[in-house]
């Protein structure tokens, strides 16, 4: 009886937290300056951002592929493959940090880093390059008091990135009160998602993207990677940035928005299907032996997270 009482207290521990839905819908509008968004868009698709005019932002973050490139990795302008799977540009504005290891605190940092390391075109060079283009210089002059410079060019691209959101997923509609927008299975899936504790990390507006977590809660540290027989540098995650023991195998929890469209999965793009990914999560993050049907329901729920991108430039 004693134990039961104790467990009750643990349960009541949970009770408060469950009153409010832990996931919030994506806002319909971001309230951005459309001129800046338009200017940012032209830069987003501009291959002059890479050294040899081979890549634009959109080369890897393809809007038609849910803001990623549909492959395990991407080819960089220098021909080498990226270390990490390309994260989606959609809804990135809602992430708390950027890159899988969360090295960038702001979108500006992310942009500057990508320019220097992926595009081989540090911002200073980029400015020089764009200054030759009178049309762009004039466009900046018209919109920004300071004209074309480090800050404004980053801002324009960021404004466009911020406009890349996918509201109105069926799940968001459900959250906003349309109880019929989810099928029973999907709803059951959502409940299981919460029950098994996926929600503990995947919550907030991006259903993830607001905290770090170790990959492999269950078992010894790094068991997931050691199982493959080798551990790559990229698998150390946040440790690469902080060099703290506790940050080994720690990653930014990825957003599950549009997750049905962003295969392959995980930081190394090693997992091809959503079912496999869910299995791995159950085994290494939750340590729960769920039924196959339950996992299927959860996958169904995950598929209801696909939203709609609507470009509004005029």
């Amino acid at each position, binding site marked *: 009886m004693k*134990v039961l009482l*104790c467990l009750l207290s643990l349960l009541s*521990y949970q009770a408060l937290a469950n009153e409010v839905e832990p996931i919030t819908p994506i806002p319909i509008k971001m309230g951005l300056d459309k001129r800046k968004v338009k200017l940012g868009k032209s830069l987003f698709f501009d291959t002059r951002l890479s050294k040899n005019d081979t890549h634009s932002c959109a080369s890897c973050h393809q809007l038609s592929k849910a803001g990623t490139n549909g492959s395990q990795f991407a080819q960089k302008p220098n021909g080498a493959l990226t270390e990490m799977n390309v994260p989606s540009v959609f809804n990135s504005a809602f992430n708390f940090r950027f890159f899988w290891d969360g090295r960038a605190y702001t979108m500006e940092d992310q942009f500057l880093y990508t320019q220097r390391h992926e595009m081989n075109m540090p911002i200073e060079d980029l400015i020089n390059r764009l200054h030759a283009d009178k049309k762009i210089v004039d466009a900046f002059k018209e919109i920004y008091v300071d004209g074309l410079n480090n800050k404004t060019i980053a801002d324009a691209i960021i404004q466009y990135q911020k406009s890349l959101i996918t509201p109105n997923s069926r799940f968001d509609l459900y959250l906003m009160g349309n109880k019929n927008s989810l099928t029973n299975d999907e709803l059951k899936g959502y409940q299981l998602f919460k029950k*098994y504790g996926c929600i503990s990390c995947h919550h907030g507006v991006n259903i993830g993207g607001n905290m*770090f977590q*170790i990959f492999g809660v269950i078992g010894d540290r790094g068991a997931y990677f050691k199982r493959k027989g080798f551990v790559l540098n990229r698998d150390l995650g946040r440790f690469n940035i902080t060099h703290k023991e506790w940050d080994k195998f720690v990653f930014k929890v990825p957003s599950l928005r549009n997750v049905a469209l962003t295969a392959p999965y995980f930081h190394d793009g090693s997992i091809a299907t959503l079912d496999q990914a869910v299995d791995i999560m159950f085994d290494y993050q939750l*340590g729960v032996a769920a039924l196959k049907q339950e996992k299927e329901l959860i996958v169904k729920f995950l598929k209801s997270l696909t939203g709609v991108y609507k470009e509004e430039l005029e």
Partner: protein
Amino acid sequence: MLTFKESANNYLKILEVKKIVYGFVFVLLATILFIFTAKVIFKGSGHDRIIASFYDLKQVDMRWNVDALSIASSLKNNYDSVVSLPEVTRRNDLIIQILNESSEINKEDRERLENKINYYKNIMVKKSDLIERIKSSHAVLINSSRFISSFNKELIFLLDHDNELRNFKELVEVKYILYNALSLVVSFIASKDDALHEELHELIDRLNSYADKMPLNSQSKVKNFVVHILLLMDQYKLRNQLLNELQLIKTDYLLSGIESDYVMIYNKFLDRNDDYRTILIFYSIIVFLIFSYIIIGMIKNYKRLNVVNMELKVAHNEAQLKLIHSSKMTALGEMVAGIAHEINTPLAYVSAIFSVLNEQITKIVSFSKEYENQPISVKILKKNDVDLDDILTLLEDGKYGINQISELIVTMKNFGRIDQLEVDDFLVEDGLDNALLMANYTVKDNLVIKKEYAGVPKIRCIPSHINQVFLNIITNAIQAILAYKKNGQLIIKTVKQDESMIRIDISDDGPGISQEVLPKIFDPFFTTKEIGKGTGMGLSISYKIIESHGGRILVDSNEGQGATFSILLPINKNDSKSATFFQV
């Protein structure tokens, strides 16, 4: 009374002193300007923005603390707003930027503050890392506790009813350890006693050793359960540890310290600003005093200069009057010869007449004694060579000669009023006649004088001065003609130029004035005459006199064709300015 030289020296000294004073005033003004411009610590609302940033930073810090605790007590199921480091760094950078833009904060203060802010930033990075770890840890903790609570019944049911376990000897032990472990978890959560944590680990090790002997199905379930109990314990311990660390980071004190440092710097600035204001007032008073001193000095100097000026003017006037007089005396000297000759002529004439008359009268007296008691007839007189008609004529002639002398003396008397400086109404035509009369005595009969008087109105002037001018010019003209040829002509013309001016033209047909000489004729001491014959002052003084009357002298001359002097004089009827004539 100072002499002229002393006054002049004093004046130069004053100029020197003034230069120094001006330099000093310039320095003072520049200082005031400096104090004025150095009065702002930040452009715009820098101070307000810094204070607002400190306020925001405090709010952010407080919110972080609350958020961390909310997560730890599961009051939050959405970590979106927990936590954003940029909202700290952005404000830190803003404060540093504003501090750097200010020239009023000394480098030392600024660097100290900047270092503290950067230190604070680093601490906040650590704090955010701690909170991130609390987030991660708590997510695992929650899941394990959720698992334990939901799987508990299932496990108990399994242990009670699983057929496979019926033959498992240590089932009671396993059950006991499980119950014990759960109660340990609860105690640990309540007491946070690390000893319990170690005890639990021992229990779990024992449980695992028993579980190894269990059938596979229940073994994996028990082991899974054990994993979560351990996770719960470990994460709970870790989370508490993190919360403790969080508590030890006294960001609020740090921030308050930085803020009070800043406020101290700001107050230092305000104090200095007060000092500046005091200095400013002090300087303003000094500048005011110096200006007053300069102005008073200038007034004094001006007065002194006025006195010196007056003295100079008086001396100048005296010198001028003396010059005029001396030139007049020279002119008179020239006249004397002529006049003596002129007076001699009627005198000789009168004396001849009177000797003849004497003869005649003597005759009359002698024969009248012969013809005593007899009437004397004209015939008798005739017979005795006494011509009564002749006598009458001679008397007439003598009277004429005497009249001529007296007339000459009247003229001289008129002309002699040289020191009479009273302003009077004066008919220039009379003046011209007088001057002609004076000059005429030097004139031989072969000089034709033509007068063309227009009957100009009287002018207000100093008559003796004007007379002198006329005499000067006429004498010059006559001398010029006579030196040139035997028969000459002098034309004197008066014209009413307009309502306010009259003009007198004195033209001769002498040799004229050459182009080289013409510009110099009015210069003092310039003369073309032989040494001793002219003073060189005549025309110069004439010019001055006419100028002082508000008139002008013009000369029109071609060499060999005579010269015309035109004198323009204002009529000046009842003009009060006439008093200025005194100052020739």
